């Protein structure tokens, strides 16, 4: 089997040749000497939630901005909802940037109505009021943006993005700065929009969000695609090479066949080498310690991310 670290998995989405919300074909974007995006090809099916993951500076935001039409690729093509991306603004595409960029001296309601009218050319007072109430910001409608907390600003910015009811919603780290309650509100809103047919592309550093929300996951590392597919397909590539163990005394002894141990506190996660028999490992553990729990599983997305983009990946590549 080839090295799974840098193998791009064929996206099952490519099997469906129609109904693509986004088609990126051999796109490259450089800034000076740096290739932020390098020969990227990607397809996002309509009506899906597509997760973008990758380390900081890997090219996620640049890719999102090219899909939105804010940046132009140096080469390659991008089509969004069947149309090539030009400089013109599209009413059916909304982009939520990572940084908060609200006009600080404006009141929340007025600001959201301004953004809504700017996009749709119509009054959006009712929609804005509904969204404010839904996300628990009804009391903040007349407050100035500068008086809001970070999380509240993020929710206001989210509302500005979704009020026009876009067909394609691009969210750059939408859960950044949100407490669990607010994060749930945003998550529910995103999934509701998906149910009504909106395609969602979201980037996140929270792997549990990617695992639970996203139909497809795309990982970019140093401008290149390294993962693309469903979570199942991605994990299947690595096989059942992960064992989660709890011991009564909590200390894992030295064991043959174990490549890496990750201590999660109450549980230790062991990555085993290819060919290592989990049963033999269990016997070796039982012989040396009292085992509370032992399960053989596939690696988590977090683990896969670290394998690809962590410092150890450097050692692998160099070797």
């Amino acid at each position, binding site marked *: 089997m080839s090295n799974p670290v840098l193998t791009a998995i064929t996206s099952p989405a490519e099997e469906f040749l129609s109904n693509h919300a986004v088609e990126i074909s051999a796109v490259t974007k450089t800034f000076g000497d740096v290739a932020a995006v390098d020969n990227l090809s990607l397809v996002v099916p309509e009506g899906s939630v597509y997760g973008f993951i990758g380390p900081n500076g890997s090219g996620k935001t640049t890719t999102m*901005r090219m899909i939105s039409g804010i940046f132009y690729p140096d080469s390659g093509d991008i089509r969004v909802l069947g149309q090539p991306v030009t400089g013109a603004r599209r009413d059916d595409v909304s982009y939520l*940037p990572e940084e908060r960029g609200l006009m600080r001296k404006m009141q929340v309601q007025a600001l959201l109505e301004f*953004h809504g009218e*700017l996009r749709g050319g119509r009054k959006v007072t009712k929609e804005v009021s509904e969204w404010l109430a839904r996300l628990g910001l009804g009391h903040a409608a007349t407050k100035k943006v500068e008086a809001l907390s970070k999380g509240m600003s993020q929710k206001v*910015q989210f509302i500005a993005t979704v009020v026009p009811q876009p067909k394609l919603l691009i969210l750059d780290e939408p859960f950044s700065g949100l407490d669990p309650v607010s994060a749930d509100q945003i998550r529910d809103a995103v999934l509701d929009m998906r149910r009504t047919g909106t395609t969602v592309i979201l980037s996140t550093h929270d792997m549990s969000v990617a695992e639970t929300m996203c139909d497809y996951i795309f990982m970019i590392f140093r401008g290149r695609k390294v993962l693309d597919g469903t979570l199942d397909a991605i994990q299947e590539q690595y096989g059942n090479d992960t064992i989660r163990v709890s011991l009564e005394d909590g200390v894992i002894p030295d064991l043959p066949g174990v490549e890496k141990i990750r201590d999660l506190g109450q549980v230790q996660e062991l990555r085993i080498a290819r060919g290592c028999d989990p049963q033999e490992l269990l016997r070796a553990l039982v012989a040396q310690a009292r085992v509370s729990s032992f399960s053989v599983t596939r690696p988590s997305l977090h683990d896969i991310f670290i394998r690809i983009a962590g410092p150890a990946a450097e050692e692998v590549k160099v070797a």
Partner: protein
Amino acid sequence: MSIRNKTFIISLIMAPVLFGGGFLGLALMNARPDIADRHVAILDRTSLVAPFVIAAAEETNKKDVFNKKTGKQENPRYFFETVPVDPQSPDAQRLALSDRVRRRELFAFLEIGADALHPGEEVDGDDPASKTRAAARRVGFYSNSSAMSDVRYRLGDAVDTGVRRARLLQLGVDQSKLHDLLGSVKVEPMSLVARDDATGKIAAAVKKNEAADFGVPFTVMALLGMIVMTGASPMLSSVAEDKGNRVFELLLGSATPFELMMGKVIAAIGRSLTSSLFYVAGATFVLYGLAIAGLVPLTLYPWFYAYLLADLLFLCSLAAALGASCGSPQDAQQLAIVLLTPVLIPYFLFMPVMTQPNSGLSTALSLFPPFTPMLMLLRQALPQGIPAWQPWVGLAGTLACTVFLTWSAARIFRVAILMQGKTPKAADLVRWAIRG
């Protein structure tokens, strides 16, 4: 929204005060002149000239000190004290008089050199003999006040008149003829004569108002410059601040960079045009009040607004591009001088253009697009007029330059608004303008 606040109202009032402050200061000074009496000692080494100088100064006292209509004193009176000459100790005598000036017993003292009456040819040279001869010819005004003091000029006229009278009398000229011989010839500016088309009569020439002939064209130019500066300058820091607050990142989801930039530019132009209405209306009111409205032809008004619009678009677009390339409003402030160069340079050039409006240099400068709005308007406001084709060519050049700059600025703006970190260099801006 930007005009419905106190800041706009205050800036509307303060802008002309700040820009016209110098003239305001002059007017205030003229309203309250220093009219304290001036006591001047005369040290006359010719032994002849002093009485004539004193007589000439007293004539000035009678003519110029009091306003003939109101009787109010407008200038100081001069009183003289003739000091006997000490030929043995000239330096000691000068020191003693200097000390009296320092003690404020005198305002100044006048020393008339022994050869002042018949100085002969001018002598140049650093040798002692040349210096001695120069000192003997000199009429010196010794005081604490600066060399720019108007007292020296006023007394200088009296000394000049006094010395000439002394010379003529020495030649035996009849004293009754002195006034006629020494009277200066004043050349008065007059308008051209024209025939009235309605009556067929030849209309009399009128005397021109020198102050108005200078003041009106300069004010027209300065008004345009002031409106443009107050309109474009805030754009620089406003765009830089919006960039720092990441406002553009969210707005880019709703509008293209060009639309964002032009939105801000159009808002700035609207604000400036609103303030221009106040200033133009106010200036027209003043012109009618001073009965010199005829000095500003009606045809100048549309040209004023054409140049104003072009210049505002030019500078506001430039401000947007420069503001977008800055990392913070503080960085933007440092670029203000770059932004305002097309407005400041015409201020430095206005005098030579006014004195020779149809020279090759004046024409060329006024056809250079960044300077055209102010300098061409200045030339058009002057009484002698300019060839009819020049304003049209100037306007066409300005518009073409403005369109090009706006297009370039939009390309720079699109790239720069999302760039964070170090401020780009000029070469980067040029590259972005070319490549986008």
